[in-house]
């Protein structure tokens, strides 16, 4: 028998969908800022994938900047970044407060055994294993990924603050390894969001329409156990 099941509270759906364009704008404007010192000779060659003298990939090749039209827009990038940072931060803080006070955090925060569970999920999703661990609302891999991305959001705010006012927040900047390291950390957190985004989209596509719809409407149709009184004859 089918039943309508409440999946996501209204507040969490709003936080999620508001965050999506805000984070996109933060990344977009952040790229405009990073462009201004992305030259390897200037950035000290740390914005890359490689080791020693070997560089597999430098962030970013010239065609990337050209095609996306991100060159020569430092002033605009900074203005957008320092405008939308407030909305991004406020939305994120309200989300965390909501999950704390509503008790929703119980579904999200990973518990003991979730690392093993997450591994099972990954093996299952890669069709390397048949077993999928039992879970409520979010599977162990989701719990770890979603909690991690929230922590990353906090880390982005902190590293951002350390870059924004490295003298006034000198102790924070120092703690993060100094101004240039804080920039590097801020950059890699962003790359983390981009990786998260692609995996997230892939998993949402795999999970199907009902799952996506539940993030908009809050509800999904699930099979529920029939009550004995209405059992089929």
């Amino acid at each position, binding site marked *: *028998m*089918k*039943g*309508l*099941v*409440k*999946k996501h*509270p209204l507040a969490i759906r709003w936080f999620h*969908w508001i965050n999506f*364009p805000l984070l996109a704008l933060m990344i977009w404007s952040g790229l405009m*800022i*990073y462009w*201004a*010192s992305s030259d390897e000779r*200037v*950035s000290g060659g740390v914005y890359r994938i490689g080791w020693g003298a070997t560089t597999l990939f430098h962030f970013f090749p010239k065609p990337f900047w050209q095609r996306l039209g991100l060159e020569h827009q*430092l*002033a*605009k990038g*900074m*203005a*957008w970044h*320092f*405008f939308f940072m*407030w909305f991004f931060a406020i939305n994120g803080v309200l989300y965390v407060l909501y999950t704390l*006070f*509503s*008790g*929703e955090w*119980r*579904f999200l925060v990973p518990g003991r055994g979730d690392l093993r569970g997450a591994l099972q999920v990954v093996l299952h999703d890669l069709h390397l294993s048949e077993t999928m661990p039992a879970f*409520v*609302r979010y599977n162990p891999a989701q719990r770890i990924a979603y909690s991690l991305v929230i922590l990353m959001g906090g880390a982005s705010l902190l590293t951002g603050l350390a870059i924004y*006012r*490295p*003298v*006034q927040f*000198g102790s924070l900047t*120092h703690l993060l390894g100094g*101004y*240039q390291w804080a*920039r590097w950390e801020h950059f890699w957190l962003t790359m983390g969001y981009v990786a998260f985004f692609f995996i997230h989209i892939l998993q949402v596509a795999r999970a199907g329409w009902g799952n996506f*719809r539940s993030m*908009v*409407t*809050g*509800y999904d*149709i*699930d099979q*529920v156990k*029939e009550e004995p*009184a*209405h059992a*089929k004859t």
Partner: protein
Amino acid sequence: MPRPDSESAPDRTLPQSPGSSDSQDSRVEAEMRKRSRRGFLVALLAAGGAYGGWRWLIARPRVDGLAWPFRRSLSLNEALSGKLFDPNRRVAEVRRDAIPPAGPRVNGDIGLEDPPNLTDWRLRIVGTELRLQLDDLRTLPQTSQATPLNCIEGWTTAARWTGVRFADFVDRFYPSGRSAPYVGLATPDGSYYVGLDAASAFHSQTLLCHAINDEPLSPAHGAPLRLLVPTKYGIKNLKRVGFIEFAQNRPPDYWAERGYDWFAGL
């Protein structure tokens, strides 16, 4: 803490009538369709609103190169940064090995296009008859500091900078300048100019600098005298100082007129 909705329980708002499970299924699907229509309609309106808001935002009249809401938010950030600014917080000096031996990186030559006229150069304070030479500045206590210079583009360079504290300079030559809320500086030809808030101008590490790594300034570094404000981005560290003005209102600033933040503090 309240318990969140349980996953396993079906929604209690649905009527639990004793029909067949097929009719129950179709009721559930009808209810889901209703909720979907409502949900996606709200989503569509929200997306449309966000898009409209964005179009409105970027089409606002520009103030100094930025749509006014962005300029306004930079001003709010600036007010907050001004409050946050602690005049006793010093920029950490760098280790000797962090100082490029060939000198700090050169970037920007606005106002330096012509070679400096070192014999006729005078430092002028706007509104006075003062015409100062480098020797006048040498009568003041000399300070050296190994501070980083952060470019607004994102990179950092460093040097051992020598000169006189801007605050000492003002105390000696124009004491009434200490009460001005703003300071403006410009190159002799007036083509590059910066504005500073008093707190940053009179910070103990703000120098009128005449030597880098114990050598007199080269023309590219602003010979004979440059401003060094390590609490600000490089764009505020004006080279070849020609004029100093003490102002009641925010002095014009070359890069702030071109879309950048007027405060540009660190």
